[in-house]
């Protein structure tokens, strides 16, 4: 294994750790907002580290750039969707009869 492969392997391992953490949180946390909190870890860090690992193994610069672009897209959309989902969950929670 050369250095790029060792680096990629450790980045994949760290990314999978965050994914497993996010999945465990999604499964075990008690309500929507805490589950959303766990999910954003998997979305941003988990995918980010895996994308970074894949980018180190890319053959050319364009491939690596494309992988980092995937990360950028997911960060933008997950931040937006996270806000929208939290807003929706919050307002529907307020409307619920106590």
């Amino acid at each position: 294994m050369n250095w790029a492969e060792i680096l990629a392997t450790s980045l994949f391992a760290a990314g999978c750790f965050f994914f497993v953490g996010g999945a465990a949180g999604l499964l075990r946390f008690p309500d929507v907002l805490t589950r959303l909190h766990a999910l954003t870890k998997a979305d941003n860090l988990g995918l980010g580290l895996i994308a970074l690992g894949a980018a180190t193994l890319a053959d050319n610069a364009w491939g690596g750039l494309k992988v980092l672009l995937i990360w950028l897209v997911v960060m933008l959309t997950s931040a937006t969707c996270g806000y929208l989902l939290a807003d929706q969950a919050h307002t529907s929670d307020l409307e619920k009869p106590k």
Partner: protein
Amino acid sequence: MMSMVATIFAAFLMLVTAVALMRVACGPTTADRMLGLQLLGTSLTALALLLGVALDRPRLWDIALVFAVLASPTAAVFIASMRLRTRSTESDSA
């Protein structure tokens, strides 16, 4: 060597996908199901990235990009329909 490592990590991500599907199946609220779908979209994106490494086919990264782009409109459409529904029930009760 690298393909074996990436395959093992891809198998881990399959477990994450199963957990996300479990959350989609058992709810309890619709927002929870949507969260499960969000995690499904992200883990499928990562899975396509890892399989691109494992099979040495960088074209699979294009598929990962498609997954990443398609995951967000589902949440947006879902929230738009939820808002429409709450608005219509409000006007019903008024």
